[in-house]
Each structure stands twice: as structure tokens, then as C-alpha cells.
């Protein structure tokens, strides 16, 4: 739990109540390389506000649609729900929202004026495009130069279409370009144009985001055979033409994700047998577990702990690979340092080899410029300032970071923009790495009380059918599944905060909390790491001493008042998030025009909220709750029943018909 308490004065002085969210982050946000506000966008999605959801995603993540398909989702790996039942399928919700909304359904927030310096970006991959977007938003005029005829980088040129259809990539590219990003394709810097030329054309800074464009090869005897394919050439050719020269019996050398992509692509090109051979034992393989599972389902076998020595070629044809046993891959210091047993050499039969042992930078862009390479042949680069040996030339993305993921490349591009902005405004380049802390694991005693809801699986094509085409291997959620999945989110870190000066120590919070979170010594304390953000305590606290980190005070009343301002006399329905977009509740009310206001749970609706809806002009108020046991929070239904009863009697006392507030409990 974080130190320090909150007073009502401090609360009133916050620029926005959302600043409280900066005290501690949910672990999903913390571990996301671009720190997307996962909790917030999932909450929008859970209420069916898909437009707001995609905008929140895109506030941090320009490659929303692409990452919805291919992200390695460190958010999910750190999801606190894992200790309740299983992690939230964050990526699948994002995928649903991003592809449903498309580029047109995402708000474009252009800079008011785009009149700052021109910046050239080399490479239209995740790093380059993310940087271009942020530059445009800051008012710079970015132009992205890409050697391929289309933007997208590796996702567009090498990631197989069965994992990432090209139209999905276009959603992100179109949305980014709508911000005033100029895209020039088919121009290779270093060949068609030099960095010096760019400078002469008026670009004040250049950002290199050229990625890793070459495949690493091994200098083995026989490796010069045309059917020993460098992995990127192989995948890029497939990506462009859906064809590539290949044999019947393919051996992919390498144990990472790229190797898996190559193996599964080889199957789809019609190879009879595809195997992967790597130095690592199965558990040590760098490929994600789910990638390995899907590959195995399609019939790909792994040959572990074997290192290639020679490609055997007979009368112009590859006949196999001679491979020796690996005794260890990593040394005591966990550094890559393989050792072999030369007494144990076997021949692995094959007629084609794909070399997927890593990628490296192509420094061709630097021709005719001041950008230098270091002793190991990499771009000379400062990770602190993002500058190369030429102070006006910056670098980001995989060309300068360890190989990683698309989202990490986006993050690198975004940081580079901060450096460029400082440089171009004549300030010293100093970037802060500071992040708020993240909340810890859910305590078992609390986790037990959280209602279990199984993770919604995505439908997958069956292995036998899918392995013969480049059609997608799995399918988007349907809306109901997306809503259901989003509603599994526990809203971590968005819970209650006590205004210590207002707290009377009355113990009401302690008595109503269904999770037993509040402790009251002299005043109440609520451990945000444990709080489930149900809002029951805030709805009951007699001194309004409990506020939510994730919602402004009186949020519901304010939202309702805003609706009624334009059309008084309307019916308002406070609908439990469990029923968002469900038509069924309408059938029972017979009210023609109802303004729906979604809440995460009815647990947080106070009697005051109900009365103020009527004060603000609602002709009547419907409270749509789940039936007992279906609500995400224990006893939420019991509480809302009691509150509706109180509200009815209070309005009756004021001379209104009590029937103007009605509760529906839906199965």
C-alpha cells in the first residue's frame, strides 16, 4: 500500500480527479511498454462505449489494431485476475474494439497548428510510425520514408497473414496518417536519397527507425545453396507474393517466434514435413508457449538441443543437416554460451533449410552521412539522448534496442520524439524514467470473494483446415463475448480513497464492504491494492469521505444531469454493466424512450444519485440490476434493493409518486 493520506483540500486542488490514478497504476498498465490505460479502456468496452475505448487505447498505442492481433501482451502476463481464475484476455478485447471501430471510428486529434520543424523518419515500422504520430501531435511536420511500397514495417512485410491480415494493418496506418503524417513509400534512404540530402531539403532532424532488415546466417559448409533461405527474405517473399521457393521436407533452424512463423508458413506453402531444430531444450525455447502449441497442433515437430555443423548437399540437392548434440545453452551467468558434444553427431534429413537464428541491422541508410557504426557494426547511439554520432540524427526501434516486439518499438519511437522535441527547442536532452508504482497481487482472502468468471475463448480454425492457407487462424470475439470478457476486469487501482479530514470513523464502510477491505483505527484506511472498486462504501459514507480514484465525485449525478439538460422529462435508466447493450431489459419496461446510463455495478448508486436524477428533471428512474448472485460484487443486489426502497419513501414524502423510481432485477 502506498504511503500518505488524502485530505479534502488536496482532493479539491487536483487538476483532475483522474490524477489520483497516478498514485499507483494497475500492473497491466505498468507493464505495457507504452503504458496504455488498460483499466480505463476495458471499462469503456465493458459498458459498450467502444468509441471511447479505442480512443483511450490510441492515446498511448498507435498500433492498436496491429497489436490487437500480434502483441505479446505483457499486460495479460501481469493481470491480477490470474490469481482469481485466469488473466483477462486484454488483447482480444482490444482486437475486437480496434477492428470494430476501424480507422474512421477512432477520433483524430490533430495539433491545433502544425507549423514546427520538418522531421524525416526512415522506416515506416512500429517505431517510425509511432514517432511520426507523436511529432505531428506536437505540431512538427513529419515525413516518413519507407523503402517498401507500403507502410507497416515487419508486421506488413514479414509477419504471416494468417496471424495478421493486411487490412488490419491499414487501419492503424490510415489513422496515423490522418494526423498530418506524410508518408513517402518506395524510397530507400542511402540509395535513392541520402541523409545529407534530407537535411538539405529542410529537415531539421532525422530519425532512423530502419529496424532489423537482414537475416543472420551461419558460415556452414553448404550454406550457400539456394534452398538455404534467410528467414526474412523467405517471409517477405511470401508476404508480397504468397509464394517462395521451398522443398518438400523443410528444416527451420532456430527456436524463436520468427522460426515458428517460418515453419508454419512453409507448411502453408505445401511442404510435406516441417521440423524446427534449435539449440535450446523445449522449455528454454524463446518462442512463446502458445506459438509452440499452435505449431505442434499443425504437425510441426521440434528437434531440441541440436546445433548445425554442415548442410549436406548431393548432386546439387540438399539431403540433410549434420547436427551435434548441445550440452548446455547458457552458462552459470545465464549468458548465451552453448557447448557441444562433438562425439554425438547425427544427420537430420531435409531438402530445404530456413535460417531463422536472428536478424541484424542493414546500415545502408547511412551511406553518405555522418552516422557511424560502432566496433560491432551497429549504429553508434546514445540510449540516453537517442542521438547517433550526428547530433541531428536520432535512432529508435529495433535497430538500436534488443530485438523485441512491435509495442516496444512503438514505445522506443515515442521516447525518441521526446528527445527530438527537446533538441529542436534548444534544450538539453534529459528524459525521465520515473513511473508510478504498481499495485501488488490480490490477497488470497480477497481473491476468494471475487466472483469467478471463466475467460472467454476466441474461436480458432481447426488445425487440419488452417494449415493449408494463409487465412486467419482465429476469429474476433462477437460483441457479447467482448462485453463479457471486458466485464471480468477488476478495475485494479481505481478504487476507494478516504478523505481523512472528513472521516468520522463511523465504521459504515467497514460494515458495508463485501470484501472486508476498510480498516478503521481513528479514521478509515482502504488499501487500494485490495479494494475491488465496487463503490459500496462511497455510496453509503455519511460524510462523503470516500472518493473513487477512477471517477470524479458525483460522477453519476453529473452524467445524468448532462443528459437531462438537453431533454428534461425523459426516462433515465441506470443499468448494471452486466446488461450493457442487452435488449432484454427494454422488453419489460414498455417505456419508448429511455436514456441508458451504464454503471459497472449497481453497488455504487447512492440514494442521493437517485433523487438527484429526479431533481434534474428525469420523469422517472429505472434501476436495472442483475438478479441475485449474478452481480460482480457480493450482495450488490441486496444493497440496491434497500436503497431503492429508501429512495421511494423519500420521494413519496416529498409528494411524488413512489413509482417514479423502479427497480428491475434481470436474470
Amino acid at each position, binding site marked *: 500500500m502506498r504511503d500518505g493520506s488524502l485530505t479534502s483540500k488536496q482532493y479539491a486542488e487536483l487538476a483532475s480527479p483522474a490524477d489520483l490514478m497516478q498514485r499507483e497504476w494497475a500492473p497491466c498498465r505498468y507493464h505495457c511498454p507504452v503504458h496504455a490505460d488498460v483499466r480505463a479502456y476495458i471499462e469503456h468496452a465493458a459498458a459498450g462505449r467502444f468509441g471511447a475505448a479505442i480512443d483511450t487505447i490510441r492515446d498511448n498505442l498507435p498500433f492498436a489494431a496491429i497489436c490487437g492481433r500480434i502483441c505479446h501482451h505483457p499486460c495479460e502476463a501481469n493481470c491480477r485476475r490470474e490469481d482469481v481464475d485466469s488473466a483477462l484476455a486484454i488483447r482480444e478485447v482490444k482486437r475486437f474494439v480496434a477492428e470494430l471501430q476501424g480507422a474512421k471510428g477512432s477520433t483524430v486529434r490533430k495539433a491545433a497548428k502544425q507549423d514546427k520543424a520538418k522531421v524525416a523518419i526512415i522506416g515506416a515500422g512500429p517505431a517510425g510510425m509511432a514517432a511520426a504520430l507523436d511529432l505531428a501531435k506536437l505540431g512538427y511536420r513529419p515525413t516518413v520514408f519507407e523503402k517498401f511500397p507500403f507502410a507497416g514495417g515487419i508486421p506488413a512485410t514479414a509477419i504471416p497473414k494468417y496471424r495478421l491480415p493486411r487490412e488490419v494493418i491499414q487501419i492503424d496506418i490510415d489513422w496515423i496518417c490522418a494526423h498530418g503524417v506524410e508518408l513517402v513509400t518506395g524510397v530507400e534512404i542511402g540509395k535513392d536519397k541520402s541523409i545529407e540530402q534530407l537535411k538539405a531539403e529542410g529537415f531539421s532532424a532525422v530519425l532512423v527507425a530502419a529496424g532489423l532488415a537482414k537475416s543472420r546466417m551461419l558460415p556452414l559448409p553448404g550454406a550457400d545453396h539456394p534452398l538455404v533461405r534467410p528467414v526474412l527474405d523467405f517471409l517477405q517473399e511470401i508476404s508480397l507474393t504468397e509464394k517462395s521457393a521451398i522443398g518438400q521436407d523443410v528444416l527451420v533452424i532456430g527456436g524463436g517466434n520468427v522460426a515458428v512463423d517460418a515453419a508454419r508458413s512453409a507448411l502453408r506453402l505445401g511442404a510435406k514435413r516441417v521440423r524446427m531444430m534449435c539449440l535450446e531444450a523445449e522449455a528454454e525455447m524463446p518462442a512463446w508457449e502458445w506459438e509452440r502449441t499452435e505449431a505442434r497442433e499443425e504437425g510441426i515437430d521440434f528437434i531440441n538441443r541440436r546445433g548445425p555443423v554442415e548442410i549436406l548437399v548431393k548432386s546439387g540437392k540438399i539431403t540433410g543437416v549434420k547436427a551435434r548434440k548441445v550440452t548446455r545453452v547458457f552458462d552459470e551467468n545465464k549468458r548465451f554460451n552453448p557447448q557441444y558434444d562433438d562425439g554425438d553427431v547425427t544427420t537430420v534429413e531435409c531438402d530445404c533449410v530456413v535460417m531463422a537464428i536472428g536478424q541484424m541491422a542493414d546500415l545502408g541508410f547511412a551511406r553518405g552521412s555522418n552516422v557511424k557504426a560502432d566496433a560491432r557494426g551497429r549504429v553508434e547511439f546514445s540510449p540516453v539522448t537517442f542521438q547517433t554520432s550526428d547530433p541531428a540524427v536520432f535512432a529508435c526501434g529495433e535497430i538500436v534496442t534488443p530485438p523485441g516486439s512491435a509495442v516496444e518499438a512503438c514505445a522506443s519511437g515515442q521516447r525518441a520524439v521526446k528527445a527530438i522535441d527537446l533538441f529542436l527547442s534548444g534544450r538539453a536532452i534529459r528524459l525521465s524514467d520515473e513511473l508510478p508504482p504498481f499495485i501488488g497481487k490480490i490477497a488470497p482472502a480477497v481473491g476468494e470473494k471475487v466472483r469467478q468468471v471463466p475467460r472467454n475463448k476466441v474461436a480458432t480454425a481447426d488445425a487440419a483446415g488452417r494449415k493449408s492457407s494463409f487465412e486467419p487462424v482465429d476469429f474476433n470475439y462477437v460483441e457479447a463475448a467482448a462485453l463479457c470478457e471486458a466485464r471480468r476486469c477488476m478495475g485494479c487501482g481505481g478504487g476507494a480513497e478516504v478523505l481523512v479530514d472528513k472521516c468520522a470513523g*463511523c465504521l459504515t464502510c467497514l460494515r458495508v464492504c463485501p470484501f472486508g477491505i476498510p480498516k478503521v483505527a481513528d479514521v478509515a484506511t482502504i488499501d487500494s491494492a485490495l479494494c475491488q472498486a465496487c463503490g459500496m462504501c462511497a455510496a453509503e459514507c455519511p*460524510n462523503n469521505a470516500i472518493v473513487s480514484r477512477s471517477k470524479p465525485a458525483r460522477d453519476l449525478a453529473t452524467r445524468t444531469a448532462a443528459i437531462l439538460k438537453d431533454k428534461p422529462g425523459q426516462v433515465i435508466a441506470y443499468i448494471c454493466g452486466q446488461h450493457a447493450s442487452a435488449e432484454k431489459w427494454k422488453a419489460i419496461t414498455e417505456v419508448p424512450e429511455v436514456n441508458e446510463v451504464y454503471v459497472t455495478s449497481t453497488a455504487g448508486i447512492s440514494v442521493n444519485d437517485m433523487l438527484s436524477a429526479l431533481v434534474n428533471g428525469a420523469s422517472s428512474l429505472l434501476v436495472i440490476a442483475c438478479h441475485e448472485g449474478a452481480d460482480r460484487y457480493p450482495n450488490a443486489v441486496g444493497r440496491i434493493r434497500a436503497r431503492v426502497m429508501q429512495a421511494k419513501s423519500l420521494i413519496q414524502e416529498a409528494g411524488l409518486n413512489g413509482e417514479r423510481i423502479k427497480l428491475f432485477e434481470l436474470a
Partner: protein
Amino acid sequence: MIVAERKPLNEIVQSLAGRKRVLVLGCGGCVAVCCSGGEKQAELLGEQLKLAAQVACKAASGGEEAARGGTAAPGGKVEITVDCITRQCDREFFANMKHDLKDFDVVLSTACGVGVGYMTALYPEKVILPALNTTFYGANVAPGQWQEFCHGCGDCVLAWTGGVCPIARCSKSLINGACGGTNHGKCEVSKDMDCAWYLIYKRLKELGRLEDLRKMRPARQWSKDRGKGVRRLTHEELMQDTEVQK
């Protein structure tokens, strides 16, 4: 702790007597703890008053809910403002009000009678009205339930009554044992009410202290209850040369 409960809305509305600019002032002390007069309940009363006013307006124009309205009508348009301070029984806290009393015709206090009375003394030019009935000194015996345990008689007898107060809990505040109306442990006033003297007897018997009841005691000082008028407490060591507020 002082326990109080909300007055019926009609009574409040009538006491407002058509005054238009109303400050509903909550108290964050005891009445917040018993969930009757804290900020939340002050707001709730504010909302109720606004609704009643709307009904009254409609009634005046012959609206739909006119028939129902009537009694609760505060008489046309009113301006309701809500505020709350830490305690209304300490002068300093009034400085924290977010509003200026000058702007209001009347203050409707959701404090106990102490808050209403003290505010009246502090702001003699203002009309201060009670929104609560101050009921007793009690404890929160279960969620949502409060019960009287003490009467504030000024001459505590709990030491020899086994911790059960005959002043507060005997319907007649008898001091010398049960009356003839005691009935199998219940009070003749209501079957739902325990006879305090039965409880005292039972408790002392359990403790083996029935002897205590036989002891002769000096006559009770009822003057310490209400006999000598307004009661005061003085801690000389804490006194300063400031004027005492009546």
C-alpha cells in the same frame, strides 16, 4: 454518542414557512456517525426539498402530481444550498463553511439540538432550524441500529446497578427497584421493552453482588439532572480569558 433522527419532511417544510434561500448545514460529528445528519444526509434532505418545491410548483399550475403534493409544498421556488462542517458544537469549525450565512434566509441544520442551539447563540441574527429530532445517547448495537444506554443524568449509578442504567432504561427512571408493572422481565409500558430493574437484578445476581442492592444510599441528587437549569462543565486548567458564548 448523540443519536438523532430525521424529522418528517412536512414538519421541516412547515418550519421553513416559505423562506426561500435555505442553507442545509450538515454536521460531520455524532449525527454523521449515526447516519442521520452528515454531508450525505444533508444533501439528501436538500434533494427532497427541491423535489417538494417542484411538486408545489406543479400543484400551483394544476399539474399531474398536484393532488399528492399539497402538504409538503414549501411554497414555490426555493434555493437550496448544502454545506457541511466537521462539528457544529465547536465555534472554530464554522469558519470552514464554503458559503456566507449572509446569503441565506434560514439555516436548516442537520446537527443535533446542540448544533442548532449553539449556532443560534453564535449567529443571533439568523434563523436556525432543526432538521433532526435529537433522541438519545446511544450505541450502534448492530449495522443500522442504535439504542439508548445513558440519559446524561449527571449522577451516574452504573457502579452499583451492574452497568445497566435505570434512569435511561427504566420507563419511569425509578431508582429503588422495579415497580409493580414488571412482568416476567418485561416492562408494563411495552412487551418489547426489557424491565431495566429486572436486568439490573439479573446482572448483579450473576456477579454475586446482590448485596449492593441492600446498601443504604444517600438520596439522589436530581439537581444534577435538570434541577438547576443549564448545566456547565468547567476545566479551569484549560480556561482562557475569552468571553463565554451563551
